[in-house]
């Protein structure tokens, strides 16, 4: 029952005036960012991270976590009213959300989404509170080989479960790792990879430079080019009486999807690097599969809205679990949060639970508060968010560019880094056109500086014998799972060939 006491302390931290204020602002901003097509939690967290240096680290991460949470709720608003997912995490919500809106039942879709998100968030918070201290106490005994094996697993998940072009995914991972190694060799202290002998590279490439370049500039260019700035909205009519009726309908037809989404989302979210997008897609698929009327899905079934929405909220909390306990992000957004923690002078990983108890439990407590804040703000201000969605993209887009450039400078105080951001942004746009996934690169630039020293220390321990990753009781199974995931696509290909022959 020690956990309950710690949780109560954490909630007390979360409702301190400054933190409560940041939660409310974070959730509201997150709802807006999530609702804006082309902007998701990862863009919001990347662009706003520099701004949080104003408040203490504990409050900063509470703000960013609230924003992450809010964005998961907000994604549904544009999926339903515009038919464009506000973020990749809400793609599955369009499948049934948009048909419902076209039938004039946008309000039902939005209410279902909000309720399912709330339940998903709550289930995930409880699971998180139960599992996090356990996992952290196990992880305390991890040495370099275990940590490297976990890193390998994080990258392997991208390859095995990513669903993207595999050579391109591996390229992206390695590119991020190499970019992360620019600057100085941590062990010998010698300058390393000073590209074109430009002294600007001596200080290395911060993960924020890549993250803002990719998500603040590259993705925005891509959205502008794809939508050509033209977006049309359906405006739902929302009344108190209507909401009550919709709530009843949502509970009756959406409970199954919500339950599946809540649990499945959490476990997919926990997997390193998987995150909310695959979680929501899988929850949609499973709910449709077990439904008695699978033919109704895709035509406007509330269950098809509830499952992905419960899952994406649940997964966003799940993704925080490996980030806090193992120091390995469970999604691109948590990768950026992790990078932020390093900037704030915290060392992510199991020791955090021992050394920074107030920070960790304050954050966990804030999940609960954010979840309640998000559902209330969401339901109360749906009309306002829809009104804001009508803000012309030609005003919003330059604002985001300005925030990216000014925020990027504020974080690094170096024009060289700002130029790098622009170069990465333009590069990311073209790579995105050719289906190169870029989230792995962002994750890799965060994890690279942790992965390399652990690999070198492990090999030093074993005098250069790589079998150290297979023979230790915890590192061994993790390495084997990682290798299976890496070779999974090859197995699939072989089986397909054999069945064709």
């Amino acid at each position, binding site marked *: 029952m020690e956990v309950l006491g710690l949780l109560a302390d954490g909630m007390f931290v979360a409702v301190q005036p400054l933190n409560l204020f940041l939660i409310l602002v974070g959730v509201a901003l997150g709802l807006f960012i999530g609702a804006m097509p082309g902007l998701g939690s990862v863009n919001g967290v990347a662009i706003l991270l520099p701004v949080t240096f104003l408040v203490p680290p504990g409050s900063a991460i509470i703000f960013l976590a609230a924003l992450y949470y809010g964005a998961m709720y907000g994604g549904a608003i544009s999926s339903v009213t515009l038919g464009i997912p506000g973020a990749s995490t809400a793609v599955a919500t369009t499948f049934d959300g948009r048909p419902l809106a076209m039938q004039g039942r946008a309000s039902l879709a939005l209410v279902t989404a909000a309720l399912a998100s709330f339940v998903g968030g709550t289930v995930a918070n409880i699971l998180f509170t139960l599992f996090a201290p356990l996992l952290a106490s196990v992880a305390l005994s991890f040495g370099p080989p275990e940590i490297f094996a976990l890193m390998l697993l994080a990258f392997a998940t991208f390859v095995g479960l990513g669903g993207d072009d595999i050579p391109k995914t591996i390229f992206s991972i390695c590119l991020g790792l190499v970019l992360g190694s620019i600057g100085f060799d941590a062990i010998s202290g010698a300058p390393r990879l000073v590209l074109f002998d430009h002294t600007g590279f001596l200080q290395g490439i911060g993960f924020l430079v890549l993250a803002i370049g990719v998500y603040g500039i590259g993705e925005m260019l891509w959205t502008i080019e794809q939508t050509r700035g033209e977006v049309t909205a359906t405006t739902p009519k929302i009344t108190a009486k209507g909401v009550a009726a919709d709530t009843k309908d949502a509970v009756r037809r959406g409970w199954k999807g919500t339950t599946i989404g809540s649990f499945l989302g959490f476990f997919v979210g926990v997997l390193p690097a998987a995150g909310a997008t695959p979680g929501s897609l899988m929850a949609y698929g499973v709910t449709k599969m077990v439904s008695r009327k699978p033919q109704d899905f895709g035509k406007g079934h509330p269950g098809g809205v509830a499952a992905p929405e419960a899952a994406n909220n649940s997964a966003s909390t799940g993704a925080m679990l490996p980030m806090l306990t193992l120091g390995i992000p469970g999604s691109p957004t948590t990768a950026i949060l992790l990078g932020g923690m390093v900037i704030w002078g915290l060392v992510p990983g199991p020791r955090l639970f021992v050394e920074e108890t107030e920070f960790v439990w304050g954050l966990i407590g804030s999940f609960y508060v954010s979840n309640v804040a998000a559902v209330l703000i969401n339901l109360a201000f749906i009309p306002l968010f829809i009104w804001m969605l009508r803000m012309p993209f030609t005003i919003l887009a330059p604002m985001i*560019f300005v925030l990216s*450039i*000014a925020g990027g400078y504020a974080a690094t105080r170096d024009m060289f880094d700002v130029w790098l951001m622009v170069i990465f942004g333009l590069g990311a746009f073209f790579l995105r056109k050719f289906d190169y996934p870029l989230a792995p690169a962002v994750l890799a630039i965060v994890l690279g500086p942790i992965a390399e020293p652990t690999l070198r220390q492990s090999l030093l321990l074993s005098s250069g014998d790589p079998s150290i990753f297979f023979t230790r009781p915890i590192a061994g199974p993790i390495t084997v799972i990682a290798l299976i995931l890496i070779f999974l696509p090859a197995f699939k290909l072989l089986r397909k060939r054999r069945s064709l022959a």
Partner: protein
Amino acid sequence: MRKGEIVTAGLLALLSLYLMWKSTELPIGYIAGEGPGGGAWPFWLSGIMLICCGAIAFNWWRQTSPASRSDEPLLDAVGWRMVLLVGGGIVAFVGLVNVISMYGAIAAFLLYYMRYLGRHRWRVSLPIALITPVTLFFFFEGAMQITMPKGMPFTDPVFNVLYEIIY
């Protein structure tokens, strides 16, 4: 798209080769008693990048990736225009920072984007273009104590007035 796919893979292969060559400035093998050399990590990873480029080229030849089957242009005329105007605008924005200060560049970029690209009326674009940098000034310089680039000396009179307000 088909041509673009192989050209991109070629460029990335060159980048990988450059990174491999640059990594060899430090030892890339195993040093007894010290573990892997400082250049080993980036060297072998860049090597994997090069192999991936080979695999991408092979998939291009087999036409298995969507881009390698597509005859559509990478960007049509409107797309290129949009990317050049927006991307060029961002490059000009960053280029102007050291001339007319971060805040001046923000105002110029916002005005360019909203008035010229977005075709908003002056009475919409001008106030936003002026209020945004002033708000950001008070946020960064006042609240966060972060000094942004001030550009060339001719911007001093404006900043003197603004600093008077903060201090």
